[in-house]
C-alpha cells in the first residue's frame, strides 16, 4: 500500500514537472538554442576577429555578443533565399552578431502575428512592416524606434531615392526604411491580343471594347479574384487615380479631402462597367487572387492589372508567357483629372526597428543593409522597383519589370493602394464595398458615401 502511495505521488510529481516544463519551454528552448548557436558563432568569431575587428568595433565599440531577431515575410524559396544569403553575409562581417530570422506568410503576419506582438512591443528587433495607415497604431503606441538621429549619423537619407520616405514619416519623424517601390500597370498578353485581333487599349473605351471582344470569343478578358477585396481595389484605385488625379487622391486618403466626390463615384462606375461587360472570370467572388492569376500566367487570360510584382511571374521559367507580355499604363479616362503619367504605387514596404531593442545601432546597421540588399535583389528578379540609389547591370533585370520602369520614367504622381493608406475599420469597409460593387448590391454612389463615412469614423475615433 505504501508503495502504491509513493508511486502515485511520484506520478503526480512527474505530471506537475512536465507541466511546468511546458509552461516555460517556449522561451527556454528559444534562448537555449540561441546561446548554443551564438557559442558556435563565437568560436568562428575568435578566428576571424583579427581581420574584421576594425570594422565591427567602429560600429559597435565593443566585442560583446549581440543577438538580433529579424521578422520578415518570405518563407518561400525565391525571396527566402535572398534574405538568408544576406543574413549569412552580415553574420560573417559581424562575427559577434547572431541574427535569428523568423519568416511568416505575409497575410498571417500582417493581420495576426505582428499585431499581437506589437501590442506588447515584443516583435523582432528588426521587423518588416508597412508604412501609411498600417503602422500608425504602432508608432502611436511607441513600439517603433524613430530613426532620424541614426539616419543623420550615417547619412542614410542621401542613399535613398526621392519620395521613398513619405509613408514612413509620422509627425515629421521617420520610422521606417523603405524596401522597395511598386507601380501598377496593365499587363497584356500580346499573343492573345494578336490572335483575337484586338488592339492593346490606351483609353478606357478601348479597354471596354477589348473586354467585349474577348468575352464574345469565349475568353475571360481580365484577371480578378474578388474573394480578396484588395484585388478589386487594385483596379478601382487605379481608375480613381485616372478620374480624380493623384494629388487629390493623396489628400483625400489622408482625410484632408472627401472621398464621396463625383470622380470617385465615377471610378466605381467604371469598375461596374467592366464587370457588366464580363471583364472578370465567372464566379470571381468565389476566387482568390492567386487562383485567378494562375490563368494569366498559363497564357489563358489576356489582361492583368496589377502591381510591378506581376513582372516576376511573367518572366518566371515556371510560366508559359515569357517574352509575350507588354506592360502599359492603366488606360486613360476621358475627362479624368489624372493623366497617363500618374500611377498607383509608391514605397510602402518598410523595415522598422523595435523601440525596445537592446542594440539599436546594430539593428539599424542590419536593417539598412538588408533593405538595400533586398531592394537590389528584388529588382533583379522582377519583384519590385528599387527604393535605394543602386547600380544594377540592366541585363540582370527582369525584362517585364524594365518595361514598367520605362513607363514610370516621367511619372508625375503616385497614389498608394487605399488599403495600405487607410486604417482599421475603413479597410474592412473598403473591401466590403468593393465586393458589393462586383456583386451588384452596392451602387457607385453608395460606395463613395460608404468610404467617406468609414474614413470619418476612423479619423474621429483616432482624435
Amino acid at each position, binding site marked *: 500500500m505504501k508503495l502504491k502511495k509513493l508511486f502515485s505521488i511520484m506520478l503526480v510529481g512527474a505530471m*506537475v514537472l512536465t507541466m511546468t516544463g511546458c509552461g516555460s519551454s517556449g522561451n527556454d528552448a528559444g534562448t537555449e538554442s540561441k546561446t548554443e548557436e551564438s557559442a558556435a558563432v563565437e568560436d568562428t568569431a575568435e578566428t576571424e576577429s583579427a581581420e574584421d575587428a576594425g570594422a565591427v568595433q567602429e560600429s559597435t565599440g565593443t566585442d560583446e555578443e549581440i543577438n538580433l531577431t529579424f521578422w520578415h515575410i518570405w518563407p518561400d524559396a525565391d525571396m527566402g533565399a535572398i534574405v538568408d544569403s544576406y543574413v549569412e553575409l552580415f553574420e560573417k562581417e559581424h562575427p559577434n552578431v547572431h541574427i535569428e530570422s523568423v519568416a511568416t506568410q505575409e497575410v498571417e503576419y500582417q493581420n495576426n502575428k505582428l499585431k499581437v506582438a506589437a501590442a506588447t512591443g515584443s516583435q523582432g528587433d528588426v521587423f518588416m512592416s508597412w508604412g501609411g495607415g498600417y503602422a500608425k497604431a504602432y508608432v502611436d503606441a511607441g513600439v517603433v524606434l524613430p530613426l532620424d538621429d541614426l539616419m543623420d549619423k550615417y547619412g542614410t537619407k542621401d542613399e535613398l531615392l526621392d519620395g521613398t520616405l513619405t509613408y514612413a514619416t509620422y509627425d515629421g519623424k521617420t520610422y521606417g526604411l523603405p524596401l522597395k517601390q511598386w507601380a501598377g500597370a496593365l499587363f497584356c498578353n500580346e499573343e492573345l491580343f494578336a490572335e483575337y485581333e484586338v488592339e492593346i487599349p490606351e483609353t478606357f473605351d478601348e479597354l471596354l471594347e477589348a473586354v467585349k471582344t474577348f468575352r464574345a470569343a469565349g475568353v475571360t478578358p481580365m484577371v480578378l479574384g474578388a474573394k480578396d477585396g484588395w484585388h478589386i481595389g487594385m483596379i478601382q484605385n487605379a481608375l480613381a487615380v485616372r478620374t480624380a488625379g493623384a494629388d487629390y487622391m493623396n489628400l483625400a486618403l489622408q482625410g484632408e479631402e472627401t472621398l464621396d466626390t463625383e470622380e470617385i463615384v465615377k471610378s466605381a462606375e467604371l469598375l461596374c462597367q467592366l464587370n457588366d461587360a464580363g471583364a472578370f472570370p465567372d464566379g470571381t467572388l*468565389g476566387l482568390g487572387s492567386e487562383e485567378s492569376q494562375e490563368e494569366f500566367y498559363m497564357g489563358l487570360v489576356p489582361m492583368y492589372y496589377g502591381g510591378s510584382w506581376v513582372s516576376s511571374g511573367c518572366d518566371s521559367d515556371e510560366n508559359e508567357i515569357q517574352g509575350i507580355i507588354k506592360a502599359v499604363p492603366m488606360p486613360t479616362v476621358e475627362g479624368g483629372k489624372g493623366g497617363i503619367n500618374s500611377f498607383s504605387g509608391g514605397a510602402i514596404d518598410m523595415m522598422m526597428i523595435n523601440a525596445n531593442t537592446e542594440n539599436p545601432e546594430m539593428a539599424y546597421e542590419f536593417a539598412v543593409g538588408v533593405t538595400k540588399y533586398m531592394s537590389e535583389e528584388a529588382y533583379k528578379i522582377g519583384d519590385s522597383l528599387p527604393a535605394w540609389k543602386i547600380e544594377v547591370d540592366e541585363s540582370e533585370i527582369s525584362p517585364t519589370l524594365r518595361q514598367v520602369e520605362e513607363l514610370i520614367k516621367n511619372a508625375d504622381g503616385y497614389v498608394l493602394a487605399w488599403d495600405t493608406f487607410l486604417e482599421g475599420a475603413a479597410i474592412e469597409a473598403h473591401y466590403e464595398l468593393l465586393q458589393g460593387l462586383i*456583386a451588384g448590391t452596392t451602387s457607385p454612389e453608395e460606395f463613395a458615401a460608404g468610404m467617406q463615412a468609414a474614413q470619418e469614423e476612423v479619423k474621429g475615433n483616432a482624435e
Partner: protein
Amino acid sequence: MERALRDKKAICFFVLPALIWFCAIALLPVFQSAGYSLLDWDGIRDAKFIGVENYIKMLGDPLFYKAVWNSILLAAASVFIQLPISMVLALVLAGGVRGENFYRNAFFVPVIISGTIIAHLWMKIYHPSYGLLNMGLEALGLSSLTREWLGSEGTALAACFVPMVWQYIGYHMLLFYSAAKSISPEIIEAAQVDGATGFQTAWRVIIPMIVPMIKACVIFAIIGSLKSFDLIYILTNGGPVHASEVPSLLMYKKIFISNEYGYASAIAIFIILECLLFTFIVQKIFNRIQKE
C-alpha cells in the same frame, strides 16, 4: 486505491493540477474577453472603458444577425442531415456487413484530414470553369444546373455546408457505431427470436439504448456548428457580400482587419453564451426523452 479515491483530500490533490491548467488556459481567457468586451480598444493603443456599448452595437448590427442565423442553419443541417446519415451508416455497419472494418475506416478518413485540405479540395470541386461539379453536370448534359457555387450569393452558404456536414459524418458514425456495438448481443438475439425485423431491432432496441450517445453527438454537432470557422474562412471568407458569414468569422475580421478588439470580444462572449444556452436546451430535451 479504492480507499484513496474515497478520501476527499486525495481527490482534490489529483484534480488540482488539471484544474489549475484548465482555469489558466480555458476559463481565464473567457473572463479576460469579458473584460475586453467593455472597452473601445484596437489592441495596441490605449483602451477606453465604454460599458456595454459594444453589445449595443452588436445587437444593432444586421450583419451579426445574419451570421448567427447562418450558424443556426448549419447547426440544424448538422442535427437533421449529418446525424441521421451517421446513424444509418453506424447501424448498417454494426449489424455486420462484409468489409465492416474497411468501411468504418473509409468513412472516418475525412475526420482526420485537416480542414484546410478539405477546403482546398472542395474549392477545386466547386471551381466555376474547371471544377469537378460543373464539368460533371455538363458531361451529363445538365449545363443549365451549373453554377458559380462559391461565387454567387444564392449558393455559397449551401456550398459551404456540404463539405462541413460531410467531414464529420464519419466522426459521429464512429461514436454511434461503438455505442451500438457495446449493446450486449443477447438483447439483440432476443429481439430477433421474438421475430423483430432488422429495422424494428434498430428502431425499437438499439436506438433507445444509445440515447445518451445520441445526446452527446447532438451537443457536439450543435456546438461545432456554432463555432465553425476554418472551412468557411478558406472557402468563401464569409462572402460573397456576407452571404456565408458566421459569428466566429465575423469576430476574426473585427479583430484582425478592423482592429476592433473590444467589439470582437463582445462577439466572442456571445458565442460562448450561445453555446451554453444550446447545450442547456439539448440537455433538457433529452432528459425528458430519457424519462419517457
